[in-house]
């Protein structure tokens, strides 16, 4: 049982490049989330999904896009990367709200 799997673990992007952060869960959870964590800050919600085909914006959605075509996968797309998007990105899933299961994170640096 892998839980929540995030790939890649590390990535360096140049300004203006695009990339997709992958997130997959094998627990049949309906709810999935993307958070970012900046130094000294808490986790900020980027986007979330309550089920396949349904996504919605969180607190800091600008510069990102998501899709949820299956229950298992919730990729996060960065278009035109900017230095402000340098962060650690966490994907999480939940079935009943009583605690998330987090992935191990993707550390992204935009230079």
């Amino acid at each position, binding site marked *: 049982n892998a839980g929540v799997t995030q790939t890649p673990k590390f990535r360096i992007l140049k300004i203006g490049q695009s990339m997709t952060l992958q997130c997959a869960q094998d627990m049949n959870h309906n709810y999935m989330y993307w958070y970012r964590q900046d130094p000294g800050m808490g986790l900020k919600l980027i986007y*979330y999904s309550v089920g396949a085909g349904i996504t919605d914006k969180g607190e800091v959605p600008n510069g990102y896009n998501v899709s949820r075509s299956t229950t298992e996968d919730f990729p996060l797309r960065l278009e035109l990367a900017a230095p402000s998007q340098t962060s650690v990105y966490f994907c999480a899933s939940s079935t009943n709200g009583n605690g998330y299961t987090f992935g*191990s994170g993707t550390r992204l640096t935009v230079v």
Partner: protein
Amino acid sequence: DQQVKQNSPSLSVQEGRISILNCDYTNSMFDYFLWYKKYPAEGPTFLISISSIKDKNEDGRFTVFLNKSAKHLSLHIVPSQPGDSAVYFCAAILPSGTYKYIFGTGTRLKVLA
């Protein structure tokens, strides 16, 4: 506007003593609170939770206290162990059905052997 605040960025405690981590919130509509523990290079892991209808929840060495009138919750770890050294986040949730948590900024706990 930080709705969930952890005002102590770090805390050092001797092994065997009590660790008390604090969290304040501003929105009285929050109905569920959780604590997560995070080790370096790992994702946060769920530790303990409490519903707004309770004032205490205990799980082994970990106890969470909720004071709704003061909009304050705390996590007590007794006795503290070196393996407890991590960053602790409190989180709160509104009764919206989407289970979107709002996280505090975290407190780094260091338990000294």
